[in-house]
């Protein structure tokens, strides 16, 4: 790990130190996260991979201030997650698109802009801009039910991009989609990342998806939720789909699989 004591690295966007989160349940405490330490640098594409219950989604939700840690420290853009959320520092993409059925695609993308009090002209310009980024040009006036699942998820990504937050947090955004659509969307996400230079946190449980997308792969394991390996990808930033057949890709995927197996050894 690159984390150094006292090094408030300028490029560090998200920094977690000894972060723990324990849920109290009737069956006793559940350690969703335990002593998690990680630095995410500006422009990184970080994937969190691991089996269910390893705390990957919880970690992302802590970054987004949707959960409060019970111990340890975390900063987002140098401030607490709550302050970062109030400053609208990140866009969040959920597993389900969750578009409002009573709003058009354009209307859904306008939702955060309306809430943030952005003026009409800027709203229109942003809608056009982000629809183009996710390749949904011309779908502004359509209602969600008129779009396929993959298109709806792209619209929800556009919604997260609309207010120009530097950080994009995605919680298994393609988990519910079939593999062909998924491949296609993975390429589009890479393209989007290259064009916007955002810092992206991406939760997945697909090894190829994690390896294909990331500059940094965080392997996690459950009971307690913890980080077992952090892999810096050696792949170039520009990645055609064929890269998945390269020797390098297969080696990284192998290391991820080993990490997952090691963390899972006890059951």
């Amino acid at each position, binding site marked *: 790990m690159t984390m150094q004591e006292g090094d408030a690295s300028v490029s560090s966007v998200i920094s977690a130190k000894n972060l723990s989160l324990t849920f109290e349940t009737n069956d006793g405490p559940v350690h969703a996260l335990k002593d998690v330490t990680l630095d995410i640098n500006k422009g990184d594409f970080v994937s969190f991979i691991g089996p269910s219950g390893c705390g990957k989604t919880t970690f992302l939700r802590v970054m987004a201030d949707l959960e409060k840690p019970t111990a340890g420290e975390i900063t987002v853009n140098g401030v607490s997650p709550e302050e970062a*959320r109030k400053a609208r520092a990140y866009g969040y993409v*959920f597993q389900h698109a*969750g578009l*409002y*059925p009573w709003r*058009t695609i354009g209307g859904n993308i306008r*939702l*955060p802009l309306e*809430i943030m009090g952005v003026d009409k002209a800027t709203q229109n310009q942003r809608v056009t801009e982000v629809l183009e980024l996710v390749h949904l040009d011309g779908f502004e006036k359509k209602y969600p039910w008129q779009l396929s699942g993959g298109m709806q998820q792209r619209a929800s990504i556009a919604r997260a991009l609309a207010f120009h937050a530097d950080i994009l947090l995605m919680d298994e955004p393609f988990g519910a989609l079939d593999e062909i659509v998924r491949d296609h969307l993975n390429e589009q996400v890479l393209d989007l990342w290259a064009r916007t230079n955002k810092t992206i946190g991406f939760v997945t449980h697909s090894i190829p998806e994690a390896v294909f997308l990331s500059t940094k792969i965080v392997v996690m394991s459950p009971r307690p939720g913890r980080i077992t390996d952090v892999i810096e990808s050696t792949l170039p930033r520009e990645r055609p789909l064929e890269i998945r057949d390269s020797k390098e890709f297969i080696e990284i995927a192998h290391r991820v699989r080993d990490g997952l197996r090691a963390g899972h050894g006890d059951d």
Partner: protein
Amino acid sequence: MKNAVPVLSVLAVIVAAWWLAVAPMNIRPALDIAERGGAVVVPEGSVPRRDVSVWKLMLDNPGQVAVGYDLKRPRLPTPSQVGEELWKTTGAMVAKGRTWSKRSLVYHAWVTLQSTLWGFMLGTTIGILGAVAIVYSRVMDMSVMPWAIISQTVPIVALAPMIIVVSNQIGIDGRGVPKAIISAYLCFFPVLVSMVKGLRSPTAQQLDLLKTYNTNGFQSFFKLRLPASVPFLFTALKVGIAAALVGTIVGELPTGAISGLGARILIGDQFGTPLAIWSALICAAILAGALVTLIDVLQRITLRRMGFHT
């Protein structure tokens, strides 16, 4: 309009069953009249006939069954008698320019409709505001909801006279206000229950999304909870308007009211004119059907314009 065929089929079955039921229902008065007119009836005399079942009377006197279909004061009028009476008290009155006469059902229906609409508006408002309070306040949820449920277990017929007496005591003239209150009493409940459900229908994920935008309470109400509750609202309004009409009619029953469909039903009962009861009843049913259909149309238009895929 693809609903028309099933709806009309059910209507036809009901009318047929009604028409068939007229024979056993009216056989006793029919035999009394036939006997007085000199016909031979088995057994003779209305007192001995009391111990014989209507089925046996019909079997023994097949020639007199038809008399039951043309009585002046039938126990059960035929559909065509009711239709005729309905026409005489509505269309024919309008044609004669006596639309607002006390004998005209149009007048009575109008009186009932007014109270129904006031009660509906009052009940809907209480229901919606109550639901908002319940959704946003845990105290309200714990305190108001049980009472709302208990309120519906009190028989409205028992409560209606009290509401009228109380509103008289506090100096409210006329029956419009107490009737509207009784009507609202029945109407608010379905609206309250549905709106609570509708306002709570957004998923945890949808609420989390708004949190990531640092959305305030007003914005999340108007941008998420309220629009999400609209389909629930319309379903409740359909039940609510029918309940409001029932409430108004019940409010017209025990009060010595002389106008309104409920009063017509009571007066018909007291004066032994079943035709008046039945035509008022059918008139109330038509009114209810029209109101529910109206809301259904509004629902379709609104949801379509909002973009809901129905």
